[in-house]
C-alpha cells in the first residue's frame, strides 16, 4: 500500500512543487541574466537582489482581473491554458532526476515512473501541448492571436518531426526507450551520448528552442509583430498559466537533453576510476547542474540573437534539420551494423 | 472479469455512434470525425484480440489502421478545402457536383 500509493503520491507532489518553484525562479534567472548581458541590474527591489520577485509576480497575476472577451468561446478559452500546462507538467513523470535516494531506510527511485516507452511518452505528451496554443488563439476570436496560433502550431508540428527523429538515433545507440535505460546505456558506454551523437544533440537543441518558442524562434509570441501572440487576449492567472507552461517546457527540453545526451544523473566520465570521487556529489545535483547549464544556454541565446522570419524558420526546420536528422539516423544505423554491436 | 465480449460490445457501440454521426450530420468535417470514431472502434477490436490471443499481430494491424486514418484525414481535408474554396460551404448536401 505504501509502496503503491503513498510514495508515488509523495514523489508527484514533490516533483510538482519543485518544478513550479523552479519555473518561478527560472523567470527571475532569465530576467537577471538578460539584465547582466544588457548591462543592467534586473529586478532589485523585492527582497535582496530581487529574489522575492517571483512571489510578487505570482501575487500580482493572481489578483489581476481575469478578462474573457465577449466574443470568445468561453469554454475553450478557459480550457486552453490548462491544456497547455498539463502536458508540460505530466511529462516530468518519466524523467529520472537521479539514481535513487534512501529516505527512512527506504530506497526511493528519483524517477516517478520508469516505463518501457518513456521517451515515446514524452514525445506523445509534448505533442498535446499544441492544442492549447491553437485553441487559445482560436477561441480569443481576434485576428492577431489567430495568426499567431496558426504560426505557432505549424512551427511546433514541424519541429516536432525533427526532434522526434533525433530521438530515433539516440534510441538506436542506446537500444532502449526507457529513460533510465538510456542513462544506464551511457554508463555502460563510458561516454555521454553527446560525444556519440553530437549532430543529434545540436538538432535536438535547435528543435527544442523552436518547440518552446524561444529566441531566435519566438515568432508565435513576437510582440513586435503580433502584440504578444496567441495569448494576447489573456490576462491574470490564465495568462500566467501560458507563461508557466512555456518555462516548464524549457525545463522539460533541458532535462530530456540532459538525460539523453549529457548522461543524466551521471557525473562526467562515469567510468574513470580516478574520478570516482565525483560520485560523492549526489546524483540529483549533477542532473540539476547539467539542466541549469542548458537553461543558461537558452537564456544566453535569447539575449544575443535576433529573430527569424516565419518562412526562414520553416525552411530551417524542413530543409535543414529534418534531412540532417534522417541522415544521422542512417549513419547511426550503418555504424551500428558495421561495428556489429 | 472482463472478457473479450466486453470489448466487442464496446467497439460495436463506438462503431454504431460513428455510423449515426455519418448518417445524421451534414457537416463534412463532423462526418470525417465520425469516420475516425469508427476506425477507433476497429482498433479497439484489434488490440483486444491481440490481448486475448496473446499475439502482437493485432497491434501491428492497429498501426496500419492508424496509417490509413492519417492518409484519409489528409486527403479528406484536402478535398474539403478545395470544395470550400469553390462553394464556401462544408455542407454535404451541397456536394452534388462531380466537377465544376
Amino acid at each position: 500500500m505504501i509502496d503503491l500509493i503513498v510514495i508515488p503520491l509523495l514523489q508527484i507532489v514533490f516533483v510538482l512543487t519543485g518544478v513550479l518553484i523552479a519555473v518561478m525562479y527560472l523567470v527571475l534567472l532569465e530576467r537577471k541574466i538578460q539584465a547582466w548581458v544588457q548591462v543592467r541590474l534586473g529586478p532589485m527591489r523585492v527582497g535582496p537582489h530581487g529574489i522575492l520577485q517571483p512571489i510578487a509576480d505570482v501575487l500580482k497575476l493572481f489578483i489581476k482581473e481575469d478578462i474573457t472577451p465577449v466574443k470568445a468561446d468561453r469554454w475553450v478559452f478557459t480550457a486552453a491554458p490548462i491544456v497547455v500546462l498539463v502536458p508540460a507538467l505530466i511529462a516530468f513523470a518519466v524523467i529520472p532526476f537521479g539514481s535513487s535516494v534512501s529516505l527512512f531506510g527506504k530506497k526511493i527511485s528519483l524517477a516517478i515512473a520508469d516505463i518501457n516507452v518513456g521517451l515515446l511518452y514524452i514525445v506523445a505528451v509534448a505533442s498535446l501541448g499544441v492544442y492549447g496554443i491553437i485553441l487559445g488563439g482560436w477561441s480569443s476570436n481576434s485576428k492577431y492571436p489567430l495568426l499567431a496560433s496558426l504560426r505557432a502550431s505549424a512551427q511546433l508540428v514541424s519541429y516536432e518531426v525533427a526532434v522526434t527523429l533525433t530521438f530515433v538515433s539516440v534510441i538506436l545507440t542506446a537500444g532502449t526507450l526507457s529513460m533510465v535505460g538510456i542513462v544506464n546505456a551511457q554508463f555502460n558506454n563510458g561516454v555521454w551520448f553527446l560525444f556519440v551523437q553530437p549532430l543529434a544533440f545540436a538538432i535536438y537543441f535547435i528543435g527544442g528552442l523552436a518547440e518552446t518558442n524561444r529566441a531566435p524562434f519566438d515568432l508565435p509570441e513576437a510582440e513586435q509583430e503580433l502584440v504578444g501572440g496567441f495569448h494576447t487576449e489573456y490576462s491574470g492567472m490564465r495568462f500566467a498559466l501560458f507563461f508557466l507552461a512555456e518555462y516548464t517546457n524549457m525545463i522539460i527540453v533541458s532535462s530530456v537533453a540532459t538525460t539523453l545526451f549529457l548522461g543524466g544523473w551521471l557525473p562526467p566520465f562515469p567510468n574513470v576510476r580516478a574520478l570516482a570521487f565525483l560520485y560523492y556529489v549526489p546524483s540529483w545535483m549533477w542532473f540539476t547542474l547539467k539542466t541549469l547549464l542548458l537553461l543558461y544556454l537558452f537564456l544566453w541565446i535569447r539575449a544575443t540573437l535576433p529573430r527569424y522570419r516565419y518562412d526562414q524558420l520553416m525552411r530551417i526546420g524542413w530543409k535543414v534539420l529534418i534531412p540532417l536528422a534522417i541522415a544521422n539516423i542512417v549513419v547511426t544505423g550503418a555504424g551500428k551494423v558495421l561495428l556489429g554491436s | 472479469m472482463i472478457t473479450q465480449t466486453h470489448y466487442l460490445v464496446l467497439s460495436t457501440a463506438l462503431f454504431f455512434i460513428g455510423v449515426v454521426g455519418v448518417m445524421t450530420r451534414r457537416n463534412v468535417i463532423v462526418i470525417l470525425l465520425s469516420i475516425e470514431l469508427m476506425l477507433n472502434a476497429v482498433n479497439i477490436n484489434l488490440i483486444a484480440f491481440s490481448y486475448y490471443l496473446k499475439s502482437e499481430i493485432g497491434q501491428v494491424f492497429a498501426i496500419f489502421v492508424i496509417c490509413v486514418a492519417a492518409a484519409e484525414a489528409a486527403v479528406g481535408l484536402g478535398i474539403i478545402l478545395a470544395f470550400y474554396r469553390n462553394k464556401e460551404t462544408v455542407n454535404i448536401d451541397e456536394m452534388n457536383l462531380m466537377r465544376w
Partner: protein
Amino acid sequence: MFNTDELVINMGPQHPATHGVLRVVLKLDGEKVVDADVVIGYLHRGIEKLSEHRDWTQIVMLTDRMDYCASAAANLGYCETVEKLLSLEVPRRARYIRTVLAELQRIASHLVWVGSHAMDIGAVTVFLFALRERELVLDLFEEFCGARLTYNSMRIGGVPQDIPPGWDKRVLKFCDIMDEKLAEYETLLTRNRIWLGRTRGIGVISGPEAVAIGLSGPPLRASGVRRDVRKDEPYAAYDEFEFDIPLGSRGDTYDRYLVRLEEFRQSTRIIRQAIEGLPAGPVLGKAPRLIRPPAGETYHANESPKGEIGFFIVSDGKSTSPYRFRVRPPSFCNLQALPRLIRGHLVADVIAVIGTIDIVLGEVDR
C-alpha cells in the same frame, strides 16, 4: 484567410513596433502583404499653424517638438532659415558649436534607430546597448543647454551660450567611447546570419525610384544616390570639414543599416575636427532684439539624421511672426515609400521596413 478574400489587418496605432502612433492597414494574402495603407495624423498638433502666431524666437521651441529624437537638427534648420531671411552673419565659433551639436544629435538619433530597429527584429540587447550610449549624448546636451530631449539649443544668430568648461574634452571622450561601442553593435549584428537573413533583400528600392518617391537621407543614399545636403549645399560649418558620404548599392534594409552605421563614424570624425579646430570668438551674432525679417520668402534645407529637413518661411515684413511656415519633414516624405517597400513581403518584414526608414511620428504629423 485561406480562401481567396484577403485578410485585412490593422497594425497600430497601438502597436509596439510602429514607433509611435502610426497606423498601417495591411491587406494580407496569407502572410504576404498585398497592399498597405498608411494612416497618419494621430499626433498632429498643428505646429506649422501654431508657428504663424508666435514670435520668431518662440518658434525654436516648437521645432523641438517635431522630431523629438533629433531636436537640435530642427533647431538648426529653423534658425538658419531665419538667418537667411535676415541675411544675418553667424559667428564662426557658433557655427562650429552648431555643427558639433548637429552631429551629436545625429549620433543620438541613429542610436535610437539602431536600437529600436534591432529590437523589432528581436535583438533586444542591441537596444539596451544603444540606449546606454545615447545616455552619454543626452548628458552632453544637458550640460550644454540644460535639457535632455527638447533642447531649444539654438538662437537666431548663434547659440544661446558658450560651451561649458571641459565640455569639449568630454565630447572627444564620448567620440572615443562611441567608436569603441560601435564595434559591439557590429559583432552583434553586421555578420549575424539571422540579421542578414532578415534584412538582405528586404524593402529594396532602386536609386531613380527612391528619388521619384522623394526619399532623402540614409534611405536615399543606401540606394546609391549621392545626395547629402551637408556636402551639396553646405550649411553651418560643414564646408570646413572632411568627411565621406557612405553610399549603398542594393538599396535594401541591410544597406540602409550599413549606411547609418558608417554615418556614426563620419559623425565622430566631424565632431573631432570641429572640437579640435574650435575657433575663439562670440557665439551669438548681432541679431536685432525684435526680429522682423524683411518681406520675402525662403527655403532652406539641412541634413537631419532622418533626411533632408527643409523650412519654407514667408515673411510679410510687418508682423513679428511668420506669414507662412511650412516644414518639409524627412520622416513624412520617407514614410510614403512604406507601401512601396513592403508590398510582396511578409508581415514580419513590415516591422523591419518601418524600422529601416526611421520615422518619428512627431515629425510625420507635426
